């Protein structure tokens, strides 16, 4: 079985405290229970959660949807986006199977990054690590006015922004992530091809602005 790995990098810095972090938690819950009812996603999509504040860690290893259970997350500390990219790189190395003559490897991982602030660590060294890995589509979401969309632009061409980091906007972002994972899992199962770019994903809701 070829997995479709999905990594969610979630900013849990102090500025996310209160409404935003609750909205993120809820967004992930709703996302997982929606995807569980998508016949292609439940068979192929595997989800991992990496959180970052003053440091970064993988709180949920790459887990098949049917076994996934969300963990509690708290908002505290600074914004170690660079370290999160390093954790992501290591996770890809150990969790995503490469193609060999004897086995078919996994699909290239999808990565969704969400942050509401400026990276406070040496994010460029994390980015250098991350760029050595083969990934599928990478989407970064700048939530609210304080997010550094320039740094996100360096990570990926696909940057979207939310005007405010409130419950409704964050909820819409996760709905769009859910639909994108659904489309990707249908595409790999159906045509044996991966999603190549943002234009092949469902159109983002009006709350999401594409940053060019």
């Amino acid at each position: 079985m070829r997995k479709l790995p999905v990594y969610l990098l979630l900013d849990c810095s102090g500025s996310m405290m209160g409404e935003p972090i609750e909205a993120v938690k809820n967004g992930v819950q709703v996302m997982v229970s929606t995807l569980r009812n998508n016949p292609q996603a439940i068979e192929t999509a595997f989800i991992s959660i990496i959180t970052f504040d003053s440091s970064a860690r993988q709180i949920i290893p790459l887990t098949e949807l049917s076994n996934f259970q969300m963990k509690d997350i708290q908002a505290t500390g600074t914004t170690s986006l660079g370290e999160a990219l390093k954790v992501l790189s290591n996770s890809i190395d150990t969790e995503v199977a490469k193609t060999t003559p004897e086995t078919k490897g996994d699909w290239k991982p999808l990565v969704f990054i969400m942050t509401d602030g400026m990276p406070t660590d040496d994010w460029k060294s994390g980015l250098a690590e991350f760029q050595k890995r083969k990934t599928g589509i990478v989407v970064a979401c700048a939530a609210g006015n304080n997010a550094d969309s320039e740094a996100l632009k360096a990570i990926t061409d696909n940057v979207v922004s939310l005007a405010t980091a409130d419950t409704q906007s964050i909820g819409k972002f996760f709905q769009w992530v859910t639909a994108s994972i659904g489309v990707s899992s249908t595409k790999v199962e159906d045509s044996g091809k991966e999603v190549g770019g943002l234009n092949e994903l469902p159109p983002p809701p009006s709350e999401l602005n594409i940053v060019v």
Partner: protein
Amino acid sequence: MSASNYILSLLENKKIISADIVSDFIKAFSEDKENISLAEQIIQNQNLIMMNFKLKSRIEDIKRLSIPLKNGTVGKDFKSVINYDDLNLSDLIFTEFRGLEEIGLKYNEIEDSIEGNPIQSGDHNIQLLFRIDGENEDSELNIKEFSIIINPDPKSLWKDIESDKNDPFWKDDNVSTVDIVGEKKIVIASKRGRSHANVGSFRDDDFAYKYFNNSGWTVVAVSDGAGSYSLSRKGSEIACNAVVEYFEKHSDIDLHKDFEDKLLEFDMSRDEVLLNEIQILAKKNLYKATVFAHNEIKEFADKLAIEKPELFNNPKAKSPIDYFHSTLIFTLFKKFDFGYLVLTFGVGDCPIAIVNKDKTITSLMNWLDVGEFGGGTRFITQPEIFHSESNPMATRFNFQIFPDFSYLFLMTDGIYDPKFVVEANLEKNEKWQEFISDLEGNNDDKSKVNFNYANEEIDIELSKWMDFWSPGNHDDRTLAIIY
């Protein structure tokens, strides 16, 4: 604290006395029988309050504690043990769980487990009613709420929506057939994949075959229309029919005759040089068939593009024929005194394999166009395959003689992906033996295909066998077996 000390510290707190100076009057007051009794009551009540506090805060802790339960799946036996000791819950006096029965589960008090066969998917709320050590036996029960996740049965999520019969390029979702081809029989089944049924789209696979009574040749073609190209179901249909039509009507008569004569001569002489000549002739003939198939599709595509330009709106397509992208494999075989001459052609990722009579050797007849990350396949509809330098057209043909064979298989990737997984396995006889054993009923569904010549229902059996469940593999499936 003794009662008299309590009285002294009370007076001290009220700033009536100071700790180090206690007069005889105060001493006597603190030891007065009535005062002692009152103080004892206070101390007792304080102790009660503290005990109550401990109980209540412990209950709150228990309510907040997360109990790790596995996720279940509808229809799959479920059992998740709650280890009360590991959770530091040995003071919990269990009474009952609520909300389990509705989802098909129950609590097993002997094994401390939640178990059963879930019937309802979702994030379900479960209540644990409990007391803890120290609470009165008739006290109100405490309620701990937590959730249990039950996944839907993946099979139940697939919809089976009929394809649109009014579509000009509609084809049957399911077809199967059995026939006699010379001294062999052929069974073919082709069915729409679940991913297509789920959205009501069409079967993209196709096949065609013909046994030529006058010459003794049999031709069998199988094709897989590329899912992401809108008219590929028509492409696969034209490709298969064109191959049969070519050998039926258009095959160069002189070439045909020359070829047959040389074969008969070889049948007598077994001359290797002659065999080489035959091989070249055969491949030339096959080549013409592939060009014919390509041109038939191209002609159809170009004509349709003028008649119905609205169908051609895919920015990825460069020319009308791209909308018809299809793989193609076919075989031509005939029995001679020297054995079966088997000719094959293949473009795309569909294998042709032949198993010898005693099933000890399986020969893969074609190489597969597969890329590292999928999508590396090639199509009969691509003009570049005819003059590719990296994958010369000549290498797509095969010419072999077998004394006899037990099975000759042609299949699309809908069968090959789940059953062989990787290309390397197609080279392994043991994998083909597993595949044959699977066809013979050695599978989870006990679905069996009986290859006895007298079995006239074999096409229905094969079609049923092809319903096998394989997570992540829901493509169209086509399998042709000559046996």
